[in-house]
């Protein structure tokens, strides 16, 4: 309790325990930053907030929330690898909330609601910033920078913006009009773009008057298999080139058996595109097993459904060719050995297991690398996107764009926060939350039937508004505040005042599972806080309550309307007259009811003190 730390220092140190009189277990006091989904999101999108807003039907505000951290919601809503869903605590009960589908819903809503258009941003600063590469990282950085007031110019080597969104991801997963719309809305902020402009030396731009350069050209160069004649043979093609030629119409049809080598997303995409391009048979050849495949499980499953055959533990050793055209692939069977540096088990060839797979096409999808290495330079070049960390997901690229923009802002102005994700802890939570909700099935977006998947039409459809609301309501609203509502079953009180008699200080603290602390009787309790050094502090706990003065209540229902926690209802009192009654199990002491009560009948208390003074005047 000494000096600078104060109560908040003690409680927030993460090394404190609370013992309350009459309660057996000791509670760990921990400081919580944010909900698991938001922490998991590389771009720090406030998932809980927008899901919560969808749940109450406020789509406009939900969209605004998404846009503060994710300028490409329609794209992420379709193809994000949704690390948030992996962390969703709803998954411990039944299945995670369909966060990606909800994001897509809200993004599609943006295109139908004219009032949801982005207003143009006006640069207020003289400094110009260049962005190289109009992929997701570059677009995000440009979006952030123009909002910070900079004049932004994008240089894009290709004839259209989008980067891997356009050249990598197939239209049946990500329709091209969605990409165009989202990119247009970002460029519409007032960003200048030069297409067909390859910048080989980013430092040159600094000499041309740009104060900083965000360098995000991506990874465009396919990694080679390293087998003889790989570059010469007709029918051997790397996946990016294959996809680009199909999208450009240069390859309109493939026939026979197509082999795709690799286990990542671009392998799966190539295989599914090959299916749609008329291939009789598509095989994915992978040297490890399904468990080690880096592609998303749902994508692998979709490819399988569409008839792609997966051949595991198969490693190519040579091309079989006739007259300059590939006709087959000589492979060897692998077995899995000890884990390698990536943590995956290393494939070990089984001697004498060679065999030949006849093939008309071989598509190599072994990953990509940048065409040219550029490092962060102290003079103002900031490398981001795939070029910085190797090929990654779209949401990683968006995160990289945010970080790049913040770094540039700091570089130019010397101001602004250190780049970090999340909000930082502002509140303290006690103990653990017990998950005991009734299982509710997850709402899945409808998909095209298999028979209809012969074209590049989008497979997944958007949720309807009622489906979206239904799905969003499955969210447990985890986080530093116990907004999951689950505690209602177990705990009559959530917000209590912890009073330190030694210093006279007090803090409010949220208590999720302490039904025994106040057990219906709303009076103060004594407790002890122990900290790591062995020191102990006596404290007093006061429940926070809103009281209704029944005589002053005129039963108008204003409080019932405003209460966000459904804690107030009108109950019969005397002579058939109804007055407001606060259900203390649901009240969280926010006090909105106090503000709206016309007659001053409601008042909040924590201990003997009124929360807001000045009711009587």
């Amino acid at each position, binding site marked *: 309790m000494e000096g600078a730390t104060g109560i908040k220092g003690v409680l927030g140190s993460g090394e404190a325990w609370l013992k309350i009189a009459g309660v057996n277990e000791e509670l760990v006091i921990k400081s919580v930053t944010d909900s698991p989904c938001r922490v998991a999101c590389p771009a720090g999108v406030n998932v809980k907030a927008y899901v919560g807003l969808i749940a109450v039907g406020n789509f406009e505000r939900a969209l605004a929330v998404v846009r503060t951290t994710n300028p490409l919601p329609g794209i992420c809503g379709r193809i994000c690898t949704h690390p948030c869903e992996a962390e969703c605590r709803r998954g411990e009960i039944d299945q995670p909330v369909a966060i990606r589908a909800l994001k897509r819903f809200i993004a599609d809503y943006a295109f139908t609601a004219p009032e949801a258009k982005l207003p143009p941003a006006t640069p207020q600063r003289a400094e110009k910033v260049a962005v190289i590469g109009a992929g997701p990282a570059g677009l995000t950085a440009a979006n952030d920078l123009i909002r910070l007031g900079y004049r932004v110019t994008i240089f894009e080597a290709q004839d259209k913006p989008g980067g891997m969104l356009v050249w990598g991801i197939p239209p049946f997963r990500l329709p091209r009009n969605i990409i165009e719309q989202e990119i247009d809305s970002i460029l519409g902020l007032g960003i200048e773009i030069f297409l067909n402009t390859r910048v080989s030396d980013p430092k040159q731009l600094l000499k041309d008057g740009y104060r900083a350069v965000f360098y995000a050209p991506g990874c465009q160069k396919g990694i080679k298999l390293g087998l003889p004649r790989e570059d010469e043979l007709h029918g051997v093609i790397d996946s990016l080139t294959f996809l680009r030629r199909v999208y450009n119409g240069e390859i309109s049809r493939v026939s026979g058996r197509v082999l795709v080598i690799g286990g990542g997303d671009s392998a799966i995409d190539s295989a599914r595109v090959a299916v749609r391009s008329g291939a009789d048979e598509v095989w994915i050849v992978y040297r490890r097993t399904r468990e080690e495949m880096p592609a998303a499980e749902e994508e692998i499953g979709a490819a399988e459904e569409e008839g792609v055959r997966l051949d595991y533990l198969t490693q190519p050793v040579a091309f079989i060719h006739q007259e300059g055209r590939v006709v087959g692939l000589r492979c060897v069977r692998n077995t899995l050995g000890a884990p390698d540096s990536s943590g995956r088990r290393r494939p070990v060839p089984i001697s004498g297991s060679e065999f030949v797979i006849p093939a008309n096409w071989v598509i190599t999808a072994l990953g990509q690398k940048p065409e040219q290495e550029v490092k962060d330079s102290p003079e103002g070049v900031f490398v981001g996107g795939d070029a910085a960390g190797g090929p990654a997901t779209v949401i990683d690229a968006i995160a990289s764009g945010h970080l790049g923009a913040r770094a540039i802002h700091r570089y130019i102005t010397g101001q602004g926060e250190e780049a970090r994700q999340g909000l930082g802890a502002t509140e303290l939570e006690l103990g653990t939350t017990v998950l005991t909700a009734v299982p509710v099935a997850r709402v899945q977006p409808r998909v095209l039937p298999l028979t209809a998947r012969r074209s590049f039409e989008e497979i997944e459809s958007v949720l309807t508004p009622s489906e979206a609301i239904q799905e969003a309501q499955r969210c447990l609203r985890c986080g530093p505040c116990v907004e999951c509502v689950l505690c209602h079953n177990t705990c009559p009180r959530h917000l209590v005042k912890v009073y330190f008699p030694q210093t006279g200080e007090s803090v409010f603290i949220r208590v999720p599972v302490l039904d025994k602390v106040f057990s219906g009787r709303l009076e103060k309790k004594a407790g002890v806080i122990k900290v790591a050094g062995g020191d102990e502090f006596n404290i007093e706990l006061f429940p926070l309550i809103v009281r209704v003065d029944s005589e002053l209540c005129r039963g108008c229902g204003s409080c019932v309307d405003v209460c966000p926690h459904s804690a107030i209802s009108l109950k019969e*009192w005397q002579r058939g007259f109804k007055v407001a009654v606060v259900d203390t199990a649901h009240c969280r002491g*926010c006090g909105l009811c106090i503000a709206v009560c016309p007659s*001053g009948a409601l008042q909040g208390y924590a201990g003997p003190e009124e929360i807001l003074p000045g009711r009587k005047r």
Partner: protein
Amino acid sequence: MKKGAHSINSLAFICRRLEGVIAPDLLIKYGFGYRPVNCIGQVSAGLIFNAFEYGAESVLLFGCPDSECRHQRGPEVARREVAISQNLLTCLGYPAEVVGFIAKNDLTEIEEGLKKFRREKVKKAEHEPAPVKEPIEFSSGRFVCLGCGRCSGVCPVSRTGLGFSPRRLIQEAIEQKKAVSTRAVYACLSCDLCSAVCPSERPISEQILRLRTEFFRSEERPVLAHGGIVQTIARMMSRGKLRQNRSGWLESGLRVVEQGDTALWTGCAPYFQVLFQDLGVKPLTTVRNTVRILNHLGIEPVILPDERCCGHDLIWQGDIATAGSLARYNIASLQSAGVKRVIFTCPECLRTFKLDYPLLVGATGLELFHISEFLVINGFKPDAAENGKIVVTYQDPCRLGRQLRVFSPPREAIRSLKNVELREMAHNEENALCCGGKSWLECGAAVKMLQERRLGEAQAVGADVIVTACSKCEIHLRCAQKNTALGAGIKVMNIVDLLWEKSKIGNK
């Protein structure tokens, strides 16, 4: 607000979630003291006004962005309260920018907000403290209670069965003041239904008023409705120079003057228009219609540029001293405009001028009329409106009816309208039931029960419209209609609006 080294002259309310984000040093740097609240939505307009009354130059609310509010609707409620405060402050002559809401949780953005707020706060309203004289005593006189209980028998508050009894109150007060509870003293509606039946000579409400004056001096205060904002505004009006916006409601075609012998008293209309917009009450429309009717009669009324609150609600709270200060301002303004007679749309203002001002500041020498009286005296004859016959009933405001004995002029005015049928409710004229208006204090269950009863009476006579002569009756009955089954569909309107809309002159 004490003046420290950093000259703290403003107040910030901060959501507890932002306590760790906004350092107090930062706020002090910009001259803000601060008070944490559990959610920014907890801060009502009444609380914001308290800060201004105590001398704050500006009040700033810091909350979370909408999407991050733990209580979902905190910023929404805060924005609403800030908007109400801004509109009311504009009426009072402050720049609207002295109140603001900043929804941020990023330190740099908050600082930007503080800077911007400091920049925008350009001009400061000048307020000189008013010279407060010793309160003027109401005339005293021994009150003789016979203990007959007639008062409690007729009292509409007693009838709600919530334990209030005028007889007990009076007897306890005569025997020993301290036994009387604050709540009992402020439970009275001052409707004077009891006075009508009391065998003693003096009105009971006057005794209640004296008790309230004593209670107020000994810091025994009632719970004020609407966060006490009406009384706060009245007290702010009692001090020194103001730059009130008193004529912003004027529309083209309305003829008013600055000097003349007839004034129109607009009362709280501009403030109520802001405060009770949710109820659909439009007191300013009533004032505009009054000007139209007066213009029709060839009268161009004086509208005082610095009209202050009449002090009614302060008097009935027991704050005689401040009411006296207001009375002096008002009488001086009327005199300097050369006004000889004043027309009121509000019976409360009329009562205060007629019955209370002589006790506070001596005889005023003004001729005072309610608009209905004035119209009947001046032979206002509306023509028949062509369409739709409606059934109306008349709600006697207590101030106008029992206290000022104006029963028939409003009825005559209504009867003069063709196609309008006036039906009397079970309780009317001398026995009329109060709307439950109580000078914005101790509003509650008893009042609502009474209002439900009154709405029921109106429904029983098959009225389409309840016509009243007081905007408070209008506000209170409409508020009660919000969630009551009985009489919810009946329209409540001011007599002036009815006269204007249903007479042929209004249909032109």
